[in-house]
């Protein structure tokens, strides 16, 4: 699904991302962990062609993302609040995204009915604009909107942060369900090692812009990650 070759991103003097080679097959749930400034959001922004790579390319299902826009119909994402339109109500926002993805109102309504649990009665029919919702509820809207129209690649940056425990557990269930039939690829970044190991079958560790670990999740993974971030394995200097 995703192929990355010799990708670097540099600002002035500092290289913030440097990935020589990474391939994410279709249907995988892929987790990205790393400390602040490790380059997680930078990588996601590059995948969405929101910033330009300094060198190298990202290929999304045979489409080079910074050369063609053909990846847009099957890719969706929620990175931060800049993916929400503040002056719309949640319903209007869902319909808007739905229309862009070829779903009519009835289809979106049907889709939303499946997320009633997830919304916990705090999103739909509240007579509030998105800008007036709490941070957590805004996030719920953004994440669910990213699922509209059966995208093949879903990118979620820190989806668990700011969510209440119940919603976190439900979100984990939803993500697992999505990748069950191997048709949808989900990319998730997180600071929470437990969540990531629970949801993702593969976990990569970014450290100062470099890919330092690439693990297939097993019972040992959490321990290994904890040891890494606890200091044992943490390289004091960026590799290379």
């Amino acid at each position, binding site marked *: 699904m995703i192929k990355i070759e010799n990708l670097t991103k540099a600002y002035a003097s500092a290289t913030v991302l440097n990935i020589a080679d990474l391939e994410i097959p279709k249907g995988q749930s892929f987790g990205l962990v790393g400390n602040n400034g490790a380059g997680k959001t930078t990588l996601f922004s590059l995948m*969405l*062609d*929101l*910033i*330009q790579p300094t060198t190298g390319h990202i290929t999304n299902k045979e489409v080079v993302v910074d050369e063609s*826009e053909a990846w*847009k*119909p099957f*890719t*969706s*994402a929620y*990175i*931060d609040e*800049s*993916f*929400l*339109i*503040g*002056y*719309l*109500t949640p*319903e*209007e926002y869902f*319909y*808007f*995204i739905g*229309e*862009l*993805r070829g779903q009519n*109102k009835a289809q979106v309504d049907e889709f939303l009915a499946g997320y009633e649990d997830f919304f916990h009665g705090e999103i739909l029919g*509240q*007579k*509030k*604009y998105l*800008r*007036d919702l709490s941070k957590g509820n805004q996030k719920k809207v953004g994440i669910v909107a990213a699922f509209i*129209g059966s995208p093949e690649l879903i990118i979620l940056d820190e989806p668990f942060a700011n969510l209440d425990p119940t919603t976190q557990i439900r979100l984990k269930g939803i993500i697992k369900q999505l990748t069950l039939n191997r048709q949808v690829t989900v990319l998730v970044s997180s600071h929470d090692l437990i969540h990531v190991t629970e949801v993702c079958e593969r976990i990569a560790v970014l450290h100062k812009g470099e890919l330092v670990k690439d693990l297939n999740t097993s019972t040992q993974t959490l321990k290994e990650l904890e040891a890494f971030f606890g200091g044992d394995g943490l390289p004091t200097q960026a590799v290379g």
Partner: protein
Amino acid sequence: MLRHFISLEWKSFYRAASFKTNLGIKILMFFGAIYFMLVFLGMGVGAFYLIKKSGWGDPLVVANQFLVYYLVVDLYLRFMLQKMPVTNIKPLLYLPIKKSGIVRYAMGKTIISFFNWSHAFFFLPFSVVLSMEGYRPLGTFTWFLGAMALILCNNFINILMNNKDQVFYALLAVATLLGASQYFGFFNITHYTGPVLYSLYHTPWTAIIPWILLSSLAFIAFSYFRNRMYLDAGLAGKKSVAQTEDYTWLNRFGNLGTFLKNDIKLIKRNKRSRTTVIMSVLFIFYGLLFFTRSIEAYDSPEWKIFAGIFVSGGFLFSFGQFVPSWDSAYYPLMMSQNIKYREYLNSKWYLMVIATILSTVLASFYLYFGWDAYLAVVAGAIYNIGVNSYLVLWGGAYIKTPIDLGSNKKAFGDKQAFNSKTLLLTLPKLILPLLVYALGHYLISPTAGYIFVVLAGVLGFTFKNKVFLRIERIYKKEKYKTLAAYKQKA
């Protein structure tokens, strides 16, 4: 304590992103400020002699008559433009500072605002001239003090009225009604207010009254905010009850309809965009300056086209120049969603065309000034649709100022909107139609002038696809820079 506040204020001033523009623009703005100060000074000095020469009567009496409207207009401008001081207060709340200290500081800050002291540039020279021309110095002085107190009263009325749109619009309606009934001679409020304000001069001790009024207003504003210094009271942002709107009638336009729906909601639900619409309505009346022949410089015929362009294109200019900045808050979404640039631009274009047609219809009252006047408006509208709509979209690609939809800050212009590229683009927007008209007017006949302008518009319209392709390419080229710029909140 005050020292801390002042140092905070200073930092917020010189560290503001907008402060770091280039030197040239700063110098330009400096001269701009000086220019306006001189204009005000000139008005202050000149007003006396102007009134005297025109034979309207005693200048002070006349000035007092107009003072009511002056105050209303001032209040209107304040409501639209003057920023409330509450925004920077939140981080101070939990610090060991007395709440009354914070409120006093915030209120004090509004007093030194430009909106207050700029009036002195008019009132001071006017009063000096008065006393030189033989008016009693004591009376003139108390009149000056009283007028300044009234201006300051406006300051506090504005604070109390902030975010209370209903109160404001009711006041505005009353003022308009009074103005209209004076114009048509039903009722003249100035017959009552004029003498009252004149007594500030005539009976000096009465100047105390505005000051009493001022101090009570200040006290009310102070206690109002002191009692409401809570996150969910005075410091809460205004939350409006939202209603989901479908606009299903727009569905027939397909993807274009999707964007149009959003744009309509954008305009309806955000303060900043509503201001833009109000401004474009004002533009419709701009032509009155030209067609009533009230300004001599505008008498030559090609200025009619200039007026026509502005009358029909108010919305086109004020909204269009900030495409795509209107969507700056969620530009990353727009750029990663399943959206084609063409459709996005097309919807903005349609919006501007619809607004231009609407303005032209509304401007049909210019028929009162003769066919000639309305013809200029229609010709201007066609040129706007055919040529200026592209130019505005094109220029927008280079204006990378994020727009805060929730506030009116910078609604009347922004330094960054004046870069060399956009300045260059104003030439074909405003000067070219003038030249085209003049060509027809002086070579053949006035009618030919109009025909030339219309032809230019039609010609532009036929090249729509070609031009859009170019604009699309520019937008794509500027995409990353635009995204990066929108990320830095001004």
